[in-house]
């Protein structure tokens, strides 16, 4: 519905009672600045091939700026390239390079402030500190852009797509890499983030805070410095995402901190150091996910309550579950665990003895990380077996009472 709305806006924006203004080397108007100056609401500005170094350009009219044959806007490492404000502006098919960097201002290749109905589509942005920076805006669309950063340090680099105080946004099909955070949201609501690829960013692939009621669908977050971190939000839906190869001492597939009333479904977690790390989170439904070959599939701190994990597949993880206390207020049922060794006499596909996913050794490692050196050693296996037979230190109530015998078809 949201996307329909925005598409409607675009079509109104571009094809109303419009004049077309051509800018380019071979045209009458050579400067983009002049072209925009001449345009009125509803006009289309066609930007021809060439490199334009015109400093900061401000667009505050409802115009449609289209690149023809890949024009390049160069910020000369000094300027913010485009600043948009107002409503119904379309930017499409332009290369943005070398946007400025400042430690005082958040310079961006495209900055959008106090706007509504903006469309940023099919652009390529490289070498920017912030690529697309949107503040205090609504009903906008950012689609199919390719964003590559410079991989500088965490301090001197900005975010790929940065949203602050926005609502009803659609971020779709973008590919982002080499920035501080791939996609960053703060105070954003009723928005959809889908089919994006966020890879090799310095810090997080996706990072949001105080952003309720958003949906994250079919995105891929791979090989980011610290994975994905989501904090202080409620009613978040994450479906069909891939979290892959987020490796490092504090890298997480997803770090959930104070997330409540949310759904995490049909996601794939593959080869992360920690697939899901939960802290202070409540009432999250985690179901039908695949956890494969992660270091730790799930780390649940004892500050979490009322979460339920069910119908997930756990295969080949070094540790299925780790926790830091003996209290456990979360529910686990009907998951498939490849380490389950029980039996199924009545052949209903559900194991007859409960599965305890927390091993003694994972508790030991949680207390003293150096003991990781003994992982998979015979002594450790003996300790684990002894603890399984007579549980003393692992949380007794933490178990899957109805583990599945066969992997679920997901």
């Amino acid at each position, binding site marked *: 519905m949201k996307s329909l709305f925005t598409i409607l806006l675009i079509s109104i924006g571009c094809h109303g009672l419009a004049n077309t203004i051509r800018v380019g080397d071979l045209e009458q108007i050579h400067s983009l600045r002049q072209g925009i100056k001449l345009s009125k609401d509803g006009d289309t500005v066609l930007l021809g091939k060439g490199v334009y170094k015109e400093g900061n350009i401000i667009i505050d009219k409802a115009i449609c700026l289209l690149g023809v044959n890949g024009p390049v806007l160069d910020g000369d490492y000094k300027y913010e390239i485009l600043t948009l404000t107002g409503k119904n502006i379309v930017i499409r098919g332009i290369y943005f390079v070398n946007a400025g960097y400042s430690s005082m201002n958040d310079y961006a290749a495209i900055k959008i402030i106090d706007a509504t109905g903006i469309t940023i589509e099919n652009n390529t942005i490289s070498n920017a500190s912030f690529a697309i920076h949107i503040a205090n805006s609504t009903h906008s669309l950012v689609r199919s852009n390719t964003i590559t950063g410079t991989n500088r340090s965490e301090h001197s680099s900005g975010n790929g797509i940065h949203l602050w105080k926005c609502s009803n946004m659609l971020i779709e099909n973008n590919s982002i890499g080499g920035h501080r955070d791939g996609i960053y949201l703060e105070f954003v609501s009723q928005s959809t983030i889908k089919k994006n690829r966020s890879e090799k960013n310095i810090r997080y692939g996706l990072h949001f805070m105080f952003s309720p009621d958003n949906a994250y669908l079919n995105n891929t977050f791979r090989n980011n410095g610290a994975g994905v971190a989501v904090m202080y939000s409620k009613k978040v839906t994450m479906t069909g995402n891939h979290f892959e190869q987020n490796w490092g001492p504090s890298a997480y597939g997803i770090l959930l901190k104070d997330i409540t009333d949310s759904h995490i479904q049909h996601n794939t977690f593959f*080869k992360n150091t920690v697939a899901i790390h939960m802290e202070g989170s409540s009432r999250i439904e985690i179901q039908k996910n695949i956890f494969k070959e992660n*270091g730790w599939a799930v780390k649940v701190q004892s500050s979490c309550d009322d979460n339920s994990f069910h119908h997930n597949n756990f295969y080949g993880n070094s540790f299925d579950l780790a926790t830091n206390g003996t209290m456990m207020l979360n529910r686990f049922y009907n998951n498939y665990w490849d380490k389950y060794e029980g039996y199924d006499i009545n052949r209903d596909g559900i194991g007859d003895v409960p599965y305890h996913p927390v091993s003694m050794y994972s508790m030991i490692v949680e207390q003293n*990380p150096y003991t990781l050196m003994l992982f998979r050693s015979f002594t450790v296996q003996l300790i684990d077996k002894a603890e399984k037979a007579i549980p003393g230190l692992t949380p007794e109530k933490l178990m899957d009472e109805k583990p599945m015998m066969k992997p679920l078809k997901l």
Partner: protein
Amino acid sequence: MMKLSKYVLYDILRSKIILAYTIFLFIVSLSMLQMEDNSSKAMLSLLNIVLIVLPLVSLVFTTIHYYNSYEFIELMSSQPMSRTRILLSEFAGVSISLLSAFFIGIGIPVLLYAANDTGFALLFTGGALTLVFTSIAFFASVSARDKARGIGFALLLWFYFALIYDGLVLLILFSFSDYPLEKLTLLLSALNPIDLGRIFIMLKMDVSALMGYTGALYKDFFGSGSGILFTTGIMLLWIILPLWAAIRKFNKKDL
């Protein structure tokens, strides 16, 4: 020396124990690799065999072989031949037979079903551990005079390396948990060939977990080119040093 090793090898092959061992390894690894639907779980079971069974068999077989061929060794000593050569050819004969049992029994199934990084790490570790424990067994059997003592000593060594050592490490790590232990854990892992081999395999098998807090240290150290050299070097030391000590003892020994 080649001739003597050849006789030792023939002698071992005639006893058929090595043949049984090869078949046992072959059947176990083949059935594990075929039964498990994901090969990583089968590799886990094979890891246990490589780390536990292989050293035990190498130790016990070598010790028994040494005492059984004691008379042959005595006879050879009466010939114009240096004792070093006699012991080295015994070592060569035993280790070649054990190694070929390992590479046929586990190597072929692994190459057929799991020819990946983990598989090759497993084969490397298995081969190295076979040699290390053959060499340790020679030291144990040269040190003890009678058979019962020799086997007892070998078993004790196995217990120490496979079980007790890790318990001690756990104890040390917990007692000194307030101190930075990164360097210490590296040192501790080098002091036990089984641990060293295990960490070498784990680097391929549990990369994700090892990228965690302290694991990253192992990954940086053992995973790099110099780390692989380090592992190989320490393994070689573990092969050479006990053998060297055994030869020294054997040379001075009153047979």
